[in-house]
């Protein structure tokens, strides 16, 4: 076990844990953001640089500070390590600079983007960005491409996190898409016209932090904050069948994997569950899905906002959270 101090808070984690995971154990507003790291995907992380933190003491044995800011998502903790995130001005300035970099070639048209309301880049910009842009050059644009009948790729919105590539390698198999080109001309693509149609391929949509990969069965059908997320399951021969349904009334508009507060899926789901089971009768409903992240989705909670446990028995677990007091 290793004991570290993160933003002044002590936390004990297993050896080999990354700084980011240690911070997530503390939770709340001290957790660094992550745009490319994704816990279920091996090898992810280190690329977007928004999770940079300052290590002011390397370990109890070697207390020297680390000379540069380090990516918290891939740097393992050492016993006695002292890390600064929200308490360090250099970190916050660097993060602001990196958010600006992520945005210079990203369209600033959230109102017409299907991902709006559940976009990690939108949240990140809101928390760490600035309101004006200093970038006056032409932005990089691409045409929209269909990767088969279910998935649309709009490369213009991509931040090259590589998550979808790792997903294809590790979850779906028989990868036909990848990162082509180099530098800021790099793009996700299939090179020759090709269809992404492996049974687990739809997961690339869930792991995409922005609106670059979207579900064609859902695109522009509704706004995510108008929908009601519900946990549901079915007996599925391919995957766990545990999903979140996004409904308008009794109409199932979209099916996704269940995601936690860091937008990481709990279990990957198959394309049949995701794209072909759009009837309420396909599913056993478990109850409302609590969206516990800084997002407009959680703004319109329809579950009971304040819960008196002794009076209302047998509530679903998701409502028993300590809601923030304002």
């Amino acid at each position, binding site marked *: 076990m290793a004991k570290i101090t993160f933003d002044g808070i002590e936390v004990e984690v297993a050896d080999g844990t990354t700084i980011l995971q240690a911070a997530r154990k503390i939770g709340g507003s001290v957790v660094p953001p992550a745009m490319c790291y994704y816990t279920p995907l091996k090898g992810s992380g280190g690329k977007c640089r928004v999770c940079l933190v300052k290590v002011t003491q390397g370990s109890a044995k070697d207390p020297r500070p680390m000379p540069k800011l380090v990516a918290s998502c891939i740097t393992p903790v050492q016993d006695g390590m002292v890390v600064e995130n929200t308490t360090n001005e250099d970190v916050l300035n660097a993060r602001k600079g990196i958010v600006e970099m992520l945005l210079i070639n990203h369209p600033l048209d959230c109102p017409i983007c299907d991902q709006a309301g559940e976009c990690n880049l939108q949240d990140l910009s809101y928390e760490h960005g600035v309101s004006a842009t200093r970038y006056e050059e032409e932005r990089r644009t691409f045409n929209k491409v269909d990767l088969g009948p279910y998935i649309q790729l709009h490369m213009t919105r991509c931040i090259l996190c590589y998550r979808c590539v790792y997903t294809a390698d590790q979850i779906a198999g*028989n*990868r*036909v*898409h*990848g*990162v*082509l*080109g*180099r530098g800021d001309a790099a793009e996700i693509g*299939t*090179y*020759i016209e090709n269809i992404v149609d492996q049974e687990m391929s739809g997961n690339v949509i869930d792991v995409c932090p922005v609106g670059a990969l979207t579900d064609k069965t859902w695109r522009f059908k509704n706004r995510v904050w108008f929908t009601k997320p519900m946990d549901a399951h079915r007996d599925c021969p391919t995957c766990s069948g545990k999903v979140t349904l996004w409904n308008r009334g009794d109409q199932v508009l979209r099916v996704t994997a269940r995601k936690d507060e860091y937008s990481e899926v709990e279990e990957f789901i198959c394309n049949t569950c995701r794209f072909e089971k759009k009837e309420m009768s396909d599913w056993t409903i478990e109850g409302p899905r609590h969206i516990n992240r800084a997002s407009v989705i959680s703004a319109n909670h329809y579950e009971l906002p304040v819960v008196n446990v002794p009076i209302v028995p047998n509530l679903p677990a998701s409502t028993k959270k300590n809601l923030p007091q304002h």
Partner: protein
Amino acid sequence: MAEIINEVKFSDAGMAEIQRYISHYPEGRQKSAILPIMHVAQAEFGGWLSPQVMDKIAEILNIQPIEVYEVATFYTMFNLKPVGKHVLEVCRTGPCCLRGADQMIDMIKQKLNIEEGETTADGMFTLKPVECLASCGTGPMLQVRETYYENLDTEEKLDQFLETLRNTEVETPYHQK
């Protein structure tokens, strides 16, 4: 599609070269040989890599075609579109510019009536500006296949060079050994 793939056939010498490179790496690491194989392929198939050629490379290395596309699009030496008989890879980087590279590139454009990235109408030359070729003391310079042409700092030298090249036949380098 399958028929087209079958048409891609390396020469015996080319295939021997490929097998030699693959043998340089440990068991199960045959993908390591991808860059030298692409060099062989580019030399054998007209100076560029078509999707069919890349699919053939994937087949030889027993990897997914996308893995070949990813690599081919990363490294700038691999041409992904047809090129002229002689690709003029002209250094455009700082140290060569101190010795007149910009002027040489302009002269080439004028003489061949092409812009950067274009091929002459007769299919003889493609102008491809590249970054530093580690020949900074002898700039302006350019590379054609495996030969450096250096100190091309006057119009006469450039004319002479282009004339020589016009009459040069293309050979695959490993055939000469």
